[in-house]
């Protein structure tokens, strides 16, 4: 009886934790995934898969990183897995030639020239650079957290980020 009660209690706590996590991180996670996979429908699928994995993984979360870092790591893995499934030739070391073309139906009609130029600048980045740049630039995640999310060395993360930032700035400076 005591065991059954404890199990129910644990289950309820797990559901409460999950609901809290969903409430706090859902929107932000959607936008991060959206910037990686670009298309809304794709982001929707990746987002759902991510949350289902989070739900099942939450009772086993060991607290080796912060909960939000763990969450972003799952989201990133899901996004990369999705992109690989969709594009068998997908590699993080190459530029995605379809990046800007994909945006045609994804950007608001009233988006200004600066937005278009910004996306063109992102399109000049290699896939891995773009993912990393997006994570740091928009989400303000620390380099240490990024190294955990992306499974990369902190120095590598810094190098790639500054290189990407330099490329984006140079493109915008030239085009605007």
């Amino acid at each position, binding site marked *: 009886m005591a065991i059954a009660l404890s199990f129910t209690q644990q289950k309820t706590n797990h559901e409460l934790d999950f609901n809290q996590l*969903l409430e706090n991180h859902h929107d932000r996670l*959607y*936008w991060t995934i959206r910037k990686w996979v670009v298309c809304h429908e794709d982001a929707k699928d990746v987002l759902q898969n991510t949350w289902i994995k989070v739900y099942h993984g939450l009772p086993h979360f060991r607290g080796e990183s912060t909960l939000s870092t763990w969450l972003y790591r799952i989201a990133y893995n899901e996004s990369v897995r999705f992109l690989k499934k969709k594009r068998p030739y997908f590699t993080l070391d190459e530029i995605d030639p379809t990046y800007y073309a994909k945006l045609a139906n994804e950007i608001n009609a009233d988006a200004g020239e600066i937005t278009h130029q910004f996306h063109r600048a992102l399109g000049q980045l290699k896939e891995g650079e773009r993912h990393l740049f997006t994570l740091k630039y928009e989400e303000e995640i620390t380099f240490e957290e990024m190294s955990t999310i992306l499974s990369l060395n902190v120095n590598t993360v810094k190098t790639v980020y500054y290189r990407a930032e330099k490329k984006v700035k140079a493109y915008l400076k030239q085009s605007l």
Partner: protein
Amino acid sequence: MKQKKSISQYDFRVPDGFLAESKTQILQRVSPSKPTIHFRVLWGVAASFLLLIGWMMQGSLSENTPVLKEDPFVTDLLLDTLLIEDEKLDEVLAIALLDEFEKQP
């Protein structure tokens, strides 16, 4: 992590009400669903139940059936008739019946 409100969100288009709807859908997907019993399972349960009833009835029948006493005359007759040919069967039966008749008081 600091929470930064992005104004543009890269100017990506998103359907109205999607974010709230998505949260509801995710909660529905992860909430424990009622267990569904498949027909195969039902058939299995029914078959097991029938076997159990059959076994219980068999047990009660063997308890209620009276034990038959062996009749040595019938046993001998049956053993004898198994060893002889058809044409001698009538003769053996006649002798056996006659002997039995004579033994009776």
